[in-house]
């Protein structure tokens, strides 16, 4: 039977690309005519047409590229892949009529010996991921301990030679974490004192025990709330800043630079921050004690008719100095937690901007968590000691 060419799948595609398959023997494609724009904008549609075509097993295929007006690397890749797939099936493929520059591009791709299937990167199976997560949590704990140990050693060495302490960064941190935080910590604890007095006022009035608002506000603020509030604000304000600063320095290799210059990253970045926070946090706590009680005083006068003079008289009677000291004692411990967690998370930053964000988040969450857990432990210990 004489073979006669028959057009089987003429298809037009957006952007003016066109593929026509012609056959010299039956319904299977043996000649491809390509027209128009073969570029990154048309190959998705062209590929769909190619997938619908039925090819003979083996045999010769001719690709006629004389109609191609635009061919970019994406188009050339589709052409190259089609040819390579035909050839892999045992057929021979020849290209005709391609413009010289397009043929050169096709040649360039062929010379690279590209894999036909782009590698798909898959994560490990779920069991392995669970294991990895668990391990990273455990080793994270271990690393944190190691970091605390390292910092302690560096701190001991620094305190032995106080002259070698870097006072400039310490003072800078005192300014940034302490002085600059005065307005916000003061305002928040004032409001806190206000709210406690307001909430208690109703109950106290019912029993005619107006004056005990002093006990309520002063005990709550001095023992618990003002050290806790200060630590949480400083964790959000300064702990996050420490993580972001050290993390960015790690991304830009500044930490490595410090090491090569012979300056310990601990000495320059961690110790001054720890010392500054340990100095600043108790001071801030005393300050928030005062503003908190002031808030309570204002509300006591407004809502319960307890005058300032009466408030002070009661304050001296009601508050044992131990209430003040137990609150204040917590502050340096909280300072250590916030500074060490903040710095440690900074050093954990990997090479990317994402990682800085993730570690900063972790830093704030962890330090607030640890501060509250430590506060609970303090309560238990104080109860034992009957303070």
């Amino acid at each position: 039977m004489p073979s006669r060419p028959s057009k089987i799948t003429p298809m037009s595609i957006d952007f003016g690309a066109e593929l026509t398959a012609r056959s010299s023997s039956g319904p299977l494609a043996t000649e491809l005519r390509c027209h128009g724009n073969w570029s990154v904008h048309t190959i998705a549609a062209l590929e769909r047409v190619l997938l619908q075509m039925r090819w003979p097993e083996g045999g010769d295929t001719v690709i006629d590229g004389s109609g191609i007006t635009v061919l970019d690397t994406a188009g050339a890749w589709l052409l190259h892949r089609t040819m390579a797939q035909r050839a892999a099936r045992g057929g021979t493929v020849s290209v005709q009529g391609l413009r010289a520059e397009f043929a050169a591009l096709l040649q360039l791709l062929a010379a690279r010996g590209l894999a036909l299937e782009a590698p798909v990167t898959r994560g490990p199976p779920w069991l392995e991921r669970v294991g990895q997560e668990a391990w990273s949590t455990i080793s994270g704990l271990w690393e944190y301990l190691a970091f605390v140990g390292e910092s302690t050693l560096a701190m001991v060495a620094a305190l032995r030679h106080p002259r070698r302490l870097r006072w400039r960064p310490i003072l800078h941190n005192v300014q940034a974490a302490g002085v600059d935080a005065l307005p916000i910590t003061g305002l928040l604890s004032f409001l806190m004192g206000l709210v406690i007095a307001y909430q208690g006022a109703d109950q106290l009035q019912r029993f005619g025990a107006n004056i005990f608002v002093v006990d309520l506000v002063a005990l709550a603020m001095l023992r618990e709330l003002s050290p806790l509030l200060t630590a949480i604000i400083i964790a959000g304000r300064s702990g996050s800043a420490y993580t972001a600063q050290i993390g960015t320095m790690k991304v830009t290799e500044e930490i490595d630079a410090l090491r090569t210059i012979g300056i310990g990253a601990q000495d320059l970045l961690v110790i001054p921050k720890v010392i500054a926070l340990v100095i600043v946090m108790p001071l801030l706590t005393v300050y928030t004690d005062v503003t908190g009680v002031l808030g309570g005083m204002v509300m006591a006068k407004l809502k319960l008719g307890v005058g300032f003079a009466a408030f002070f008289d009661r304050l001296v009677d009601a508050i044992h100095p131990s209430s003040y000291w137990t609150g204040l004692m917590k502050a340096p411990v909280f300072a250590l937690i916030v500074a060490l967690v903040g710095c440690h998370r900074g050093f954990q930053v990997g090479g990317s901007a994402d990682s800085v964000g993730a570690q900063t988040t972790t830093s704030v969450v962890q330090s607030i968590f640890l501060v509250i857990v430590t506060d609970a432990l303090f309560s238990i210990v104080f109860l034992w000691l009957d303070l």
Partner: protein
Amino acid sequence: METVPSGPAPNVAVDVRGVCTRFGSAVVHDGVDLRVNVGEVFALVGGSGSGKSTLLREIILLQQPAGGSIRVFGQEVVGLTDEQALPLRRRWGVMFERGALFSALTVAENVGMVLAEHTDLPAHLIREVSAVKIALTGLPADAGAKYPSELSGGMRKRASLARALALDPELLFLDEPTAGLDPLSASGIDELVRNLRDGLGLTIMMVTHDLDLLWRSADRVAVLGAGRIVGVGTMSELSRSDDAVVRQYFHGPRGRAALEQAWKTK
């Protein structure tokens, strides 16, 4: 100096006329004129602080000049909004000096992101086309799955180039393509620049300090000095120039070595 004809010519890719730039009271550009023809590798050189990178940033719309006109593909770019600039930005690719790869993404994802943003390709074609671009820049196939922080400096430059090539741009801007590379990697970049121009028919405009790269790859070179273009031409034309700045640049000790090397290899 070449004479600048009036009216846009079809074979001019970048046309800079009378550009002035000031930072406060410091004058960086005081009437810069230059033209980059379609299909050529054009290099902009000049000492540190001569405003090469600033001029590049003005052409790619990251910075506004104080005065003058910059036309890319015949379209005025000074004063364009981001929205108006989008069609132009899709026609050019930029390789930044330090790579500027997105650190949270792998190399393949860096390239694929551009494709996903500007085309409607399905995921498997995006992966394949990304792999093609990565291979074109001479990176090994397994580099695609790596993160930028796992790559060497030279590989990072190539990965950045692969991203710049993602949409098959007609015009490619390279900022210091060989800065910070060892001589072997740098000569790989020389070759890559030439291959890209020949293979993909690109127009390339680069800012560089690298005299070897200039001798090996650049068709024409413009020297920026004292806020103006003090010389334009091929490297051999410039090496015969009488201008003091140009002479200083090409006849310094390193310039001389590169010159001798270039004559030897010719």
